[in-house]
């Protein structure tokens, strides 16, 4: 971060702070909305009194046991995914890079489906299995592309992800049709299973990973200049890149382990953040916030668009993400991927 004192830089920082504040407000509004609406509608003042423990038992149960964990899970998972995508796209220098593409989410699908269908896991055990599987796949990905350029890591990731897809398909053919359908719901990223246990797991992991990742923002900005300039500026390029890739994978793994492989949240958050902050540079905190807002909004839309049908949030993020992706692929201009 050079020339902190220049007026332009100050304006940019001011704008970023403003955007962050607005995003925080949007998230708060979405969160209250998420707590208030549902089969049993609760007014915002009642939500507040339920949170501080003064509402009647029924309202408290609905808010604190049913909706609060779901809301928190969406918030944290979205933030993790958004940040993970931002880190990956920046480190791999490709707007198409995201945990969806390089195999992190697919390995989570495979681990989750095997856990769900073959071993009948649920709750904590399932989360643990998915986390383990995803981290193992990420470690494999990293070791296999050891000392290779970033684009090779992407290809290896795509290979791993194709393999994982096959595992999922195979398990589907071997399982009971009801199990397969359960697994399919999970695969598409659903918040339906969210409870206090899942949101606490997520909170603990996020509390460790988010600050570390956010602290590395400045080094990431230097890394975006290119390997040689970054090295000249005193950044240990390889080590930083490894660390950041690991962080990105871990963030995605944690989120996916809880909510299942939600498509596209990680892919779209960072570019949106870049655009709204308008600095053209990487905006980690806004990316995380946009991820959270996206997931909260998608979950609301998924719950209430078709009355009586609880769609998984992943269907909504998929429908939103796909057109963006196509635009990314066909748009003209020098920034074409």
């Amino acid at each position, binding site marked *: 971060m050079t020339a902190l004192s220049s007026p332009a830089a100050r304006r940019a920082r001011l704008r970023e702070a403003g955007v962050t504040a607005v995003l925080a407000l949007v998230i708060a509004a979405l969160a209250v909305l998420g707590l208030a609406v549902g089969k049993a509608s609760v007014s915002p003042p009642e939500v507040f009194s339920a949170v501080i423990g003064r509402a009647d038992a029924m309202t408290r149960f609905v808010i604190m046991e049913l909706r609060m964990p779901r809301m928190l899970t969406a918030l944290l998972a979205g933030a993790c995914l958004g940040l993970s995508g931002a880190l990956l796209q920046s480190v791999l220098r490709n707007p198409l890079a995201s945990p969806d593409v390089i195999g992190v989410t697919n390995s989570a699908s495979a681990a989750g489906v095997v856990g769900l269908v073959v071993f009948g896991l649920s709750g904590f055990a399932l989360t643990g299995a998915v986390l383990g599987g995803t981290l193992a796949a990420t470690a494999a990905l990293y070791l296999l592309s050891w000392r290779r350029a970033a*684009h090779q890591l992407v290809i290896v990731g795509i290979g791993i992800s*194709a393999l994982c897809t096959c595992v999922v*398909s195979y398990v589907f053919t071997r399982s009971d049709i009801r199990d397969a359908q359960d697994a399919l719901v999970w695969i598409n990223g659903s918040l339906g299973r969210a409870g206090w246990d899942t949101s606490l797991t997520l909170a603990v992991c996020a509390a460790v990973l988010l600050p570390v990742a956010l602290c590395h923002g400045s080094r990431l900005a230097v890394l975006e200049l290119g390997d040689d300039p970054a090295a000249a500026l005193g950044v240990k390029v390889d080590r930083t890149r490894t660390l950041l890739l690991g962080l990105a994978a871990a963030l995605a793994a944690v989120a996916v382990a809880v909510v299942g492989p939600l498509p596209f949240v990680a892919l779209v958050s960072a570019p949106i953040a870049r655009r709204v902050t308008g600095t053209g540079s990487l905006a980690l905190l806004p990316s995380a916030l946009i991820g959270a807002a996206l997931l909260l909004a998608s979950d609301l839309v998924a719950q209430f668009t078709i009355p009586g049908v609880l769609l998984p949030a992943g269907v909504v993020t998929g429908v939103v993400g796909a057109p963006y*992706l*196509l635009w990314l692929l*066909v748009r003209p201009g020098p920034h074409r991927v």
Partner: protein
Amino acid sequence: MPVLPVTRGTPDPAAPGAPTGAAPRRRRIGPLAAGLLALAAALVAVCVLSLAVGANALPFGTVWQALTHYDPANPHHLIVVEKRLPRTLVGITVGLGLAVAGVVMQGLTRNPLADPGLLGVNAGASLAVVVALSVFGVQGNAYLWFAFAGTTLVTVAVYGVAGAAGRGGATPVTLVLAGAAVTAALTSVVTAILLTDQAALDQMRFWQVGALTARDFTVFWQTLPGIAAGFVLAFAASRGLNGLAMGEEVARSLGQKVGLVRGFAALSVVLLCGSATAAAGPISFAGLIVAHLAARIAGPDHRWSIPYAALAGPVLLVGCDVLGRIVVRPGELQVGVVVAAVGAPLLVVLIRMRGKGRR
């Protein structure tokens, strides 16, 4: 958005084994033809195995008898002729289709990582099949035509993306990333439809994995015309592909009709991929593996590498199918799973070899 392309340090995106600056080693016709004969022998061996091996292993004598003196009253003969023979024939056509499509795709896009599975073509076929099963309630084998249509659409789209970026040169990585992203998008639509339709999921899951199980003669006869036509077109375009490997301008200055070659090649990819995927479901990596092996053995000349692929593809696919029937007897591992298990490590090896010393 300061997006830097990933081309830094990217090795030359030319087709595998494209003529290098140094004088390419002249390949003799004799050894190459001998190699083709050896491959043909291997194919015969694999096919015999495929007829004999399975939940109910049969001696070769019985297989021979079933083929020469077919007796419908004999259950062993029934297994061989009604079950394993069509399955093997479908395996041959599918293997040929995927492999030749892989070679042509790699030549056409000048991209060593082109593969019907990796470029998102399979996902297009999946989406079409899901729509056929769920929305149109298609019965029986009719979904094959939808798979064909889906494959065609996505092939054209991917080709469009590759072509649009072609002036500046779409790097191999960009194309594969685009394929992965398209796959992710289409897959999420597929899942959304399947979630609301259990019956479709029940049918879909057995096609989705990529299998030769329970394919009968109807499937074979439906697949054959497309594959045959695609193969003929591919072979007809092979000289032109050789020219394209040197770059569009060079090819044009050598007097080649570049547009015509591209059209022929693209049409053959559509026919080959479409028929193969329709018959066996989405199978990734088969095209990639075989195209690489063919280029490695037969060299850069498509007039040789296409016949090599046409023989090696069936050997791979039927071989993997046999392997799948052996490893988890008496059940079976679908051929798509086996091919991916073989192919994914190979992709990693290829990528690591390409990166060596060129970082």
